[in-house]
């Protein structure tokens, strides 16, 4: 039972990918893809319910006991990422009904999209470092395909840079895994915690930790490793860039959070101190880069970078409050950022371009879209009572509690500059009249295109508002997630199967051959 719960969120997108690839020439493919995304969401929510009930749950694949086999684990952080992945996946699957042209569908868009979701979900659920590498690759190869699908010159150019830098980071990560195995003799994350702590050569462990930090840092797009992101995220279709913006960099952040709370905690004064300054510079360079841009999606791309800084800062400060803030930020950011990219797609459909100098008039002719832009945009900047306010509040409070005033100042200052960029988009795309002299009214996009594009935007905006007005359950959830990250005893014991009392708790409703962590 438990292993099925853990496998389904990964297996469903893969199965869907196979079916929609076979159906790529038929118009029914997109509906199958949508159905698969709904099923994924159901499976993820089922997993969430199980985690809320039992705490950390784990399953050994093929019944190879940990640490020898591959373990799938879901703790609070992992499961919330899985759910949010499924939500983003469903939102973009609906959006794609309106946006993705048939020509691109026939190239296999939906299959690549589903494997991307499977790869991301797998990365969130795995409890094995080498398996994490494999999921990264599944995610990467699908993202490569999605990025260049359509084959315009901009996309190929962006693809070259994206592929080149991401492959280098993968190899750094892979070498890190090799050395980590050489030092500790294990690859299971829970097992690694003790093995790394007991390793004789702690200097070498720190070197390996830095290899992991660089490898994940490129994926997460932190300073100074982010150059692939603004070079590529504005080129693919809007549904693709929304899913990239929402999920891909966050996998890097998640991996950093996982490895630097579970495994590499021996030299926190060194590794996490580096992360603090990296985060501060990431926030600053991202937001300053955005200030210099005049393209809707390029501004948003640079803002991904600056927001990544807040999340890694939550990890770097390494207090319960800070990590809680980081987790909360992660969830809030995925919703908001994906939504902003979706809005930019609608703006492009109505006003004809994403260059802010060439569009305008959206407020007058499409006030509903304008309202839907304001919600995520102000949430991103941290306006109360939207979700971004609470996320920023937690991070800033954590840095003040540590008397780290410079960091607190940077975090607040970056929020201010974020408002600057958002008002720039607002002023140029929404307020000023359209330079070509026409009104970008909603009916410039036919209903069958516009309606599926608007549904996910409304849904995600509603989620932002709900988190903003009722932050209590989400904050509590993040608090438990942070507690589990800072004290991973339960995680380790569940994975390695040394928790007999928990076993008896869950025994009645599980198959004996699929029991989590049962040791023969």
């Amino acid at each position, binding site marked *: 039972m438990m292993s099925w719960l853990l496998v389904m969120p990964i297996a469903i997108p893969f199965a869907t990918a196979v079916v929609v690839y076979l159906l790529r020439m038929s118009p029914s493919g997109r509906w199958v893809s949508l159905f698969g995304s709904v099923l994924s969401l159901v499976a993820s929510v089922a997993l969430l319910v199980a985690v809320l009930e039992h705490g950390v749950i784990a399953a050994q694949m093929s019944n190879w006991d940990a640490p020898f086999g591959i373990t799938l684990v879901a703790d609070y952080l992992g499961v919330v990422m899985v759910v949010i992945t499924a939500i983003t996946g469903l939102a973009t699957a609906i959006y794609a009904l309106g946006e993705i042209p048939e020509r691109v569908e026939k190239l296999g868009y939906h299959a690549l999209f589903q494997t991307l979701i499977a790869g991301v979900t797998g990365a969130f659920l795995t409890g094995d470092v*080498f398996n994490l*590498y*494999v999921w990264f*690759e599944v995610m*990467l*190869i699908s993202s*490569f*395909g999605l990025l*260049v699908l359509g*084959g315009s*010159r*901009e*996309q*190929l*150019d*962006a*693809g*070259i*840079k994206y*592929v*080149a830098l991401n*492959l*280098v980071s*993968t*190899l750094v990560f*892979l*070498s890190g*895994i*090799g*050395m980590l*195995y*050489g*030092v500790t003799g294990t690859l299971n994350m829970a097992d690694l915690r003790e093995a790394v702590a007991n390793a004789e050569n702690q200097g070498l462990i720190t070197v390996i930790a830095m290899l992991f930090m660089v490898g994940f840092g490129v994926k997460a797009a932190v300073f100074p490793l982010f150059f692939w992101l*603004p*070079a*590529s995220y*504005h*080129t693919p279709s809007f549904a693709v860039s929304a899913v990239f913006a929402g999920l891909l960099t966050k996998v890097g952040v998640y991996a950093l959070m996982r490895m630097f709370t579970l495994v590499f905690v021996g030299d926190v004064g060194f590794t996490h101190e580096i992360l603090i300054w990296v985060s501060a510079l990431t926030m600053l360079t991202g937001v300053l880069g955005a200030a210099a841009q005049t393209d809707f999606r390029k501004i948003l791309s640079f803002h991904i970078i600056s927001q990544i800084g807040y999340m890694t800062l939550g990890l770097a400060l390494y207090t319960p409050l800070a990590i809680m803030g980081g987790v909360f930020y992660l969830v809030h950011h995925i919703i908001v950022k994906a939504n902003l990219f979706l809005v930019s797609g609608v703006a492009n459909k109505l006003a004809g371009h994403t260059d802010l100098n060439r569009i305008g008039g959206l407020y007058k002719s499409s006030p509903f879209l304008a309202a839907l832009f304001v919600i995520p945009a102000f949430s991103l900047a941290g306006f109360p009572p939207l979700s971004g306010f609470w996320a920023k509040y937690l991070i800033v409070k954590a840095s003040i509690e540590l008397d780290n005033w410079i960091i607190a100042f940077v975090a607040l200052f970056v929020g201010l500059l974020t408002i600057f960029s958002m008002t720039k988009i607002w002023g140029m795309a929404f307020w000023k009249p359209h330079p070509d002299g026409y009104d970008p009214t909603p009916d410039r996009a036919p209903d069958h295109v516009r309606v599926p594009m608007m549904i996910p935007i409304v849904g995600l905006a509603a989620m932002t508002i709900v988190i903003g007005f009722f932050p209590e359950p989400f904050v509590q959830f993040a608090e438990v997630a942070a507690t589990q990250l800072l004290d991973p005893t339960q995680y380790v014991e569940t994975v390695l199967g040394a928790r007999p009392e928990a076993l008896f708790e869950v025994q009645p409703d599980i198959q004996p051959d699929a029991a989590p962590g049962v040791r023969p």
Partner: protein
Amino acid sequence: MEALTALIIGLLVAGAVYLMLARNFMRFLFGLILLSNAANLTIFASGRMTLGAPALVPYGAEAPLGEVGNALPQALVLTAIVIGFGLLAFTLALAFEAYRRLRTMDSDKMRYAEPKEERE
């Protein structure tokens, strides 16, 4: 043997870095292939070197007798090779398509997705 392997890995990385610093994307790709092999060798070496002792279980026994080579890094390397091959094949195809459409392999001249150096 360890020293020799370490030396080879070092040479591969040095060659890879040299190639990857070139502007020509094909040279970068060749560098990437060398780097990928260096990473694979690192994993292989991290499993410790054992000479002439394959991890085979003799007939009738339940576990290998005596010291045998570590089979796990070999499985990891195999996975990494397969994945690396797929990714590099994709990159090669991408490079070819980029050359066909952009008519250049010089990464400095690939400025379609980003603003050109000189502002118009």
